[in-house]
């Protein structure tokens, strides 16, 4: 028995102009990825004390490059991709056009925001790193550009909500198709999570950079950043989870085991992603230990839906592997279609994510956090989450999505496969270097090639970081070659006709408790209550201490 996760399994195609704009929205993301990885390579080499600055004539300082790497790869790449990918899936799930004006508005806002940020970073007026900690003060175009990027995500959310609302009016009493449900819930979570950073930028940092506000409170704006900042990593991850839940089972020849469990998992992410931010501020003064402990517990809580995801996704893959003749306890792993570059990239993403998740739990454990906070451990960890689980999944999705949207077949499966394997091997070496260096106190965000201090314990970790980073760079470059060749030389007509939409073993029920899962407003209300409990005491008892003028120390 099986059931559909979309309204009409037979297929649906958006009007050509909407498809074209969504395609270009996604291109912005991949162009940002290309721009960012050069600086990624440079940073990795610096850990082996290779001073690369002379090789990059456009780059004035290490920290300018690091700002570009962070902004391009985790802010622009991820959000541009999601802005194109999620609305496309909602339209497919509901067999319904998107709101045309909003598709255009999302694209234009994103593009404009990008141009402003590029101006600020390239002209070296915003070398503040992507965390934008005050009182380092960037040029106003940097803050305004990032605000526009966030607004573009709100426009994409509005588009999905209006499209869903229209569908529900026409189908009263029907369950929301699962694919639309998980996309919308993911982006509602992000919509809620983005409010603190919007306040930080619009109320404090932007007016401050324009000279309209004299001083800011560094702890206050930092806390607003991390209020958004942990959920933001889930916002990067959610489009990957959508693919793992709703598309990967189809690509692997399996089925998603349960409609309701998938919905519950996404509800848990909506509830638990946001009230966890203080675990990024364990070593900050000015925040009570009780609040930090509460966020530690909630951070362990948000690990739970990821465990549920691990089970669901593996069960779906096992069904696929066994249907293809896999025998025994683990024989089904071998018989998965590893030759499909889209699936292989995502399977590798899942494998590295196991290590990313485990290191994440260590970050959340405040006892161990005191050893690794702000050391190379942390980027070691998040290159196994956003740098692989997310990036490699988006790469895998691109292998069907770009052909699907451009009408050209993937240029070379072999090159595409080689890219993902190369990247993964590089990543594991790189992360091994960063993680072990971090345990020895090797700092992150530091130009070690020119540092006035060094520890012998960092030598091997530094070399592994540089070697791994170089291999990652080669892997991702191969991806760009494949995509570029697909766009200019891919055979027309060889593209997939439809999005790989999976099925579930159990259909959504129309009776009992299950339809309540679709009461999105109710879940949003619970999420808001939990946020108020987790952040209310801090904001009620903290008196803003606006003491800092701006500094441009770069």
């Amino acid at each position, binding site marked *: 028995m099986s059931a559909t996760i979309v309204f009409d399994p037979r297929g649906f195609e958006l009007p050509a102009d909407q498809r074209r704009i969504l395609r270009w929205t996604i291109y912005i993301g991949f162009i940002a990825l290309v721009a960012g990885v050069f600086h990624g390579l440079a940073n990795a080499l610096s850990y082996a004390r290779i001073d690369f600055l002379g090789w990059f004539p456009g780059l004035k300082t290490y920290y300018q490059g690091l700002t570009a790497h962070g902004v391009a790869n985790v802010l622009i790449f991820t959000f541009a991709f999601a802005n194109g990918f999620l609305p496309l899936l909602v339209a497919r799930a509901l067999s319904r056009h998107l709101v045309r004006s909003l598709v255009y508005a999302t694209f234009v806002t994103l593009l404009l925001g990008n141009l402003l940020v590029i101006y600020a970073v390239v002209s070296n007026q915003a070398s503040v790193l992507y965390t934008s900690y005050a009182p380092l003060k960037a040029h106003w175009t940097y803050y305004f550009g990032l605000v526009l990027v966030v607004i573009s995500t709100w426009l994409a959310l509005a588009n999905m909500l209006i499209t869903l609302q229209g569908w529900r009016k026409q189908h009263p009493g029907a369950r929301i198709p699962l694919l639309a449900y998980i996309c919308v819930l993911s982006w509602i979570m992000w919509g809620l999570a983005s409010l603190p950073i919007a306040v930080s930028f619009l109320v404090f940092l932007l007016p401050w950079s324009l000279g309209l506000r004299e001083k800011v409170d560094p702890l206050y704006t930092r806390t607003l950043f991390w209020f958004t900042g942990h959920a933001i990593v889930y916002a990067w991850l959610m489009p990957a989870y959508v693919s793992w839940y709703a598309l990967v089972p189809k690509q692997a020849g399996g089925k998603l085991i349960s409609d309701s469990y998938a919905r519950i998992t996404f509800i848990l992410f909506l509830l638990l992603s946001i009230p966890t931010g203080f675990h990024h501020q364990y070593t900050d003064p000015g925040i009570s230990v009780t609040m930090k402990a509460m966020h530690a517990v909630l951070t362990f809580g948000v690990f739970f839906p990821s465990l549920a995801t691990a089970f669901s996704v593996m069960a779906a893959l096992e069904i696929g592997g066994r249907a293809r003749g896999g025998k025994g306890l683990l024989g089904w792993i071998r018989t998965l279609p590893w030759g499909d570059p889209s699936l292989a990239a995502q399977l590798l993403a899942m494998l590295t994510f196991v290590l990313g998740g485990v290191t994440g739990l260590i970050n959340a454990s*405040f006892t161990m956090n005191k050893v690794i906070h702000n050391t190379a451990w942390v980027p070691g960890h998040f290159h196994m989450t956003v740098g692989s689980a997310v990036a490699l999944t988006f790469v895998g999705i691109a292998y069907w999505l770009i052909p699907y949207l451009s009408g050209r077949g993937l240029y070379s499966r072999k090159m595409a496969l080689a890219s993902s394997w190369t990247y993964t091997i590089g990543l594991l070496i790189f992360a091994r270097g960063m993680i072990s260096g971090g345990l020895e106190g090797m700092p992150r965000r530091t130009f070690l090639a020119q540092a006035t201090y060094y520890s012998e314990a960092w030598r091997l970790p530094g070399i592994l970081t540089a070697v791994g980073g170089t291999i990652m760079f080669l892997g991702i470059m191969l991806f760009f070659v494949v995509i570029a060749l697909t766009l200019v030389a891919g055979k027309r007509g060889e593209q997939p006709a439809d999005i790989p939409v999976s099925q579930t073993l159990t259909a959504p029920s129309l009776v009992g408790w299950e339809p309540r899962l679709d009461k999105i407003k109710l879940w949003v209300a619970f999420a808001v209550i939990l946020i108020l409990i987790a952040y209310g005491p801090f904001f009620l008892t903290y008196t803003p201490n606006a003491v800092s003028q701006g500094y441009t120390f770069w």
Partner: protein
Amino acid sequence: MKVHTYEKGFLAVGGVLLVACLFALLYASVAHGIRLPGRVATIDPARVYQTPPFDKPGLRQVGPREYVAVMVGQAWAFNPAEIRVPRGSTVTFRATSIDVLHGMNVEGTRVNLMLIPGQIGESTQRFDEPGEFLIICHEYCGIGHHTMAGKVIVE
């Protein structure tokens, strides 16, 4: 369905594991006395060098083998850049910043503190082994960030 029995079992084991990890965390923080910095006090970063105890940065003895190290972080140095204590000493670092965010990580110890303008942070550590321990600024603080370091010398 069988799948759901497995899933319930998997999630139950996972849930128990997470709770066990939380208890281990609680035990470690109590048994080993691992403390996070909390709310200490606020300060005007423009007047740090006029505000006691930061008007006289440096080490002061407060008891037998007990010291307070008053540290100021600024672009791009720690003041003082070096402190010397006899082995077996317990040192409470009391630190703040006069300009941008800095960090203070003492190599091989649990001293890992953010220096945030406007806030005073505290962290305590016992030094039993003789040797030199790097103090590293581990938060980006501008173009000279990688030159900002100091030393704890245990004699």
